[in-house]
């Protein structure tokens, strides 16, 4: 173990000081490199998964021993398959070079060319909002793993208001979004209060709450007022056009990117102000970095814990209704559910973005591109889109372990900033 001990012994004050100074300097540049290498490693993991599970590739390698197929053939097959998958991912999430060339030279078909980017932005919009919520909680030393449930409840609450109450858009849309925020905030309030007053670990409570909310989702879309009239399936009423987030370039453009982007931009601005400039955000950060000092300097820890969960849950809820009001305009029993649910991706995004608003925007765009690209890859090559989520988890695992990344790439093993997160043991 001693070779990875990055902290000098406590009896060495001046060396601790210089180590901390070095760490500080690295902080400003190094994380970007680590993130880049982690991304690379994540793609390698994805490639390994493709190689070990694609029959064509496996056959080619088996061929080395059986038939005459040489090792170069096997390598070529591997390269072709992995390459095709990642090419499809890129083309489907950023831009298809062929299509771009066509559009540039002929001035036509811009819709098809821009669709991948539009899709990535559409997918990134709610992801940014949720991830900021998760990131604010992380900065306060709290792990909100219930973002998915909060987003679902926000979606349900907002969609109920958007579909069952009718008024002009000027009131309807903001109030619908507010309902989404409130739904998520309520879902966040419960774990927050339990954490503050009983010390119940937020990780277990929020995970359990996810399942409670999923059950509630099914209940709501299968019960009378909210279920689409005349339907037996798990599908809700449609959100009024006056409460929808419309496409930025009009429905005719065919691009789904929508006014949710504006909402996300406002939330980013708010989160930046909140974390970097506001007094309350300062309290939150102090609590996250050192709860004991927070208490000693007069910060009300219980209030902070509850507020964090309300804000974090509220943002997730807002993301839920943004998702529903911008794309499907209704909610069904599968809304945001699954291991690749938005709330879980948001955790990885927040970690990748180091819980800073700017970092989260970039990380959201990256993971949105992976998700959208994954779907394109599934269409083009038949490789299931879950691969994208495997790659995402791998990236985060590496980002959370910078020392490992440095070891793999033989980077100078200067002390690295550990992700400073304060999830602790159970009760205490």
């Amino acid at each position, binding site marked *: 173990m*001693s070779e990875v001990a990055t902290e*000098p*012994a406590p*009896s*060495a*004050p*001046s*060396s*601790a*000081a*210089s*180590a*901390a*100074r070095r760490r*500080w300097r690295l902080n400003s540049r190094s994380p970007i490199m680590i993130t880049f290498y982690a991304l690379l490693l994540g793609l390698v993991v994805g490639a390994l998964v493709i190689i070990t599970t694609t029959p064509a590739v496996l056959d080619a390698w088996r061929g080395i021993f059986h038939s005459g197929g040489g090792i170069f053939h096997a390598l070529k097959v591997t390269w072709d398959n992995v390459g095709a998958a990642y090419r499809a991912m890129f083309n489907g999430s950023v831009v298809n070079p062929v299509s771009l060339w066509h559009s540039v030279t002929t001035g036509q078909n811009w819709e098809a060319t821009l669709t991948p980017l539009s899709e990535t932005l559409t997918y990134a919009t709610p992801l940014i909002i949720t991830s900021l919520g998760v990131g604010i909680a992380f900065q306060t030393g709290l792990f909100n793993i219930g973002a998915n449930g909060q987003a679902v409840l926000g979606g349900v609450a907002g969609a109920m208001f958007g579909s069952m109450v009718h008024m002009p858009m000027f009131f309807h849309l903001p109030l619908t979004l507010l309902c989404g925020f409130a739904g998520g905030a309520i879902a966040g309030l419960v774990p927050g209060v339990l954490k503050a007053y009983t010390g119940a670990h937020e990780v277990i409570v929020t995970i359990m709450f996810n399942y409670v909310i999923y059950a509630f989702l099914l209940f709501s879309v299968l019960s009378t007022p909210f279920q689409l009239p005349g339907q037996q399936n798990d599908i809700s009423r449609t959100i009024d056009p006056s409460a929808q987030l419309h496409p930025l370039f009009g429905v005719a453009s065919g691009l789904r990117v929508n006014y949710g982007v504006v909402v996300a931009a406002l939330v980013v601005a708010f989160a930046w*102000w909140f974390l970097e*400039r*506001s*007094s*309350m955000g*300062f*309290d939150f*950060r*102090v609590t996250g*970095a*050192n709860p*004991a*000092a*927070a*208490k*000693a*300097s*007069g*910060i*009300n820890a219980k209030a902070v814990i509850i507020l964090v969960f309300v804000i974090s849950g509220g943002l997730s809820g807002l993301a839920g209704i943004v998702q529903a009001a911008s794309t499907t305009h209704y909610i069904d029993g599968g809304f945001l559910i699954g291991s690749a649910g938005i709330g879980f991706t948001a955790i990885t995004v927040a970690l990748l973005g180091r819980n800073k608003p700017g970092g989260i925007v970039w990380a959201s765009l990256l993971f949105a591109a992976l998700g959208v690209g994954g779907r394109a890859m599934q269409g083009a090559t038949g490789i299931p889109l879950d691969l994208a989520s495997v790659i995402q988890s791998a990236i985060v695992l590496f980002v959370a372990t910078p020392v490992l990344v440095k070891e793999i790439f033989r980077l100078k093993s200067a002390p690295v900033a550990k992700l*400073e997160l304060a999830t602790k043991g159970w009760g205490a």
Partner: protein
Amino acid sequence: MRLELRGITKRFGSFTANDRIDLTVEPGQIHSLLGENGAGKTTLMNVLFGLLHPDEGEILIDGEPVRFANSGDAVRRGIGMVHQHFMLVPVFSVTENVVLGFEPTKSLNRVDYKRATEDIVRLSAQFNLQVDPDATVENLPVGLQQRVEILKALSRDAELLILDEPTAVLTPQETDALMAIMRSLAEAGKSILFITHKLKEVRAVADVITVIRNGRVVGSAEPTATEGELASLMVGRDVELTVEKSAFSPGENVFEIRDLVVRDDRGLVKVNGVSLDVRAGEIMALAGVQGNGQTELVEAIAGMRHVESGTILLNGRDVTNKTPREVLDAGLGHIPEDRQRDGLVLSMSVADNLVLNTPRRAPFARRGTRNLAAVHDNAQKQVRDFDIRTTSVDEPVASLSGGNQQKVIVARELSRPLAFLMASQPTRGLDVGSIEYVHRQMVNHRNQGNAALIVSSELDEVLALGDRIAVMFDGRISGIVDPTTSREAIGLLMAGTAGATDE
């Protein structure tokens, strides 16, 4: 056993904690290793006990060079250690703790507790170290826990015992008992390496004294040396622990507590009916061995711990069971005992730490938005005024030395309007220069007519600073005396043996 260290060097990065240390302990000898906090004593012991590996130098036992890969190796060669922070598992029984790592077993890998208990009983009798083998360690008083540690070492046939600052948590009487145990162990042929920074104890018990400073051996002395000689060896110059104070002219009562009762985390009453008052222009020093309720008292005053009964008055205002925020706003300045845990956010900048408990106060914030320029300007000013050594106010406070970290707290507290200053162990672990600086700031504060309560377990500090000295024992004030009182008398109060005497 004869132990010899030759040229032991241990570095952490660019910092040299031990620099070519030579040391010899003869069989049956009590060898005292004397040095200030941070002089490198603990590092040396960890090297000797196999917890750290020396970069240079060698360890010889009975003339034979040895290398310890881990503490198990050291134990097998007959070295036993009583750590400053006991290495006992609180929820385990005495027996479980003593046998841990060296358990007698029967079939199926089962621990043979019957045999283990018998061994402990026998060993206790042999060395006169009585303790109930079935008691749970966390329920034992500190003195007995230390006895368990010694038993643990002896049960492993230790021939050399290392005692690392063993008296820090003991009362004077418990300390005397320990000294007696040490002498009888030495008579039984065991060698003892006694690490401390307390001059009196060294002179009382040591056969040989080695003094280290800044990681180097700076000399050795006979136990007949005077305290002054030892002290100047230890700190490298003649220390002046007395601070000049202006004449004592106390004013109105600023701070008052009446019949305070406070419990600790485990629900035990730690402060049991304490009453105390502090007047303007006065430093009240609260002396006592650690763990007699001072920590809980301070936390209760600061609003960080629930007060069961009694009242706390600050400037005539009742602040009992108010939140820390309300107490701070009422004018309490607090220099906490554990500065890195309660006083600072290490990962945040010096500037942010300087406004840690006033982030909302003008001009640092307006309507919920922080004014970073004002925070920065304030930091520049404090760094200048309080001589905080840092390359920039944007550096994280973790990068500062311990003394400068404490200066950040002192600057933060003394630079805002205070009704009352409370400082807990304000100079623990600091170098001599910083100690003097902190002391001067406290006395200046008092000279300007302010009230202060200074909690310290260092008798010298208490005597140097206090206008009156209150002694705390077992949750009560066992006496309030003036600073001309003899050390012995105060020692008796610290042990709770003398009746409460009013000044």
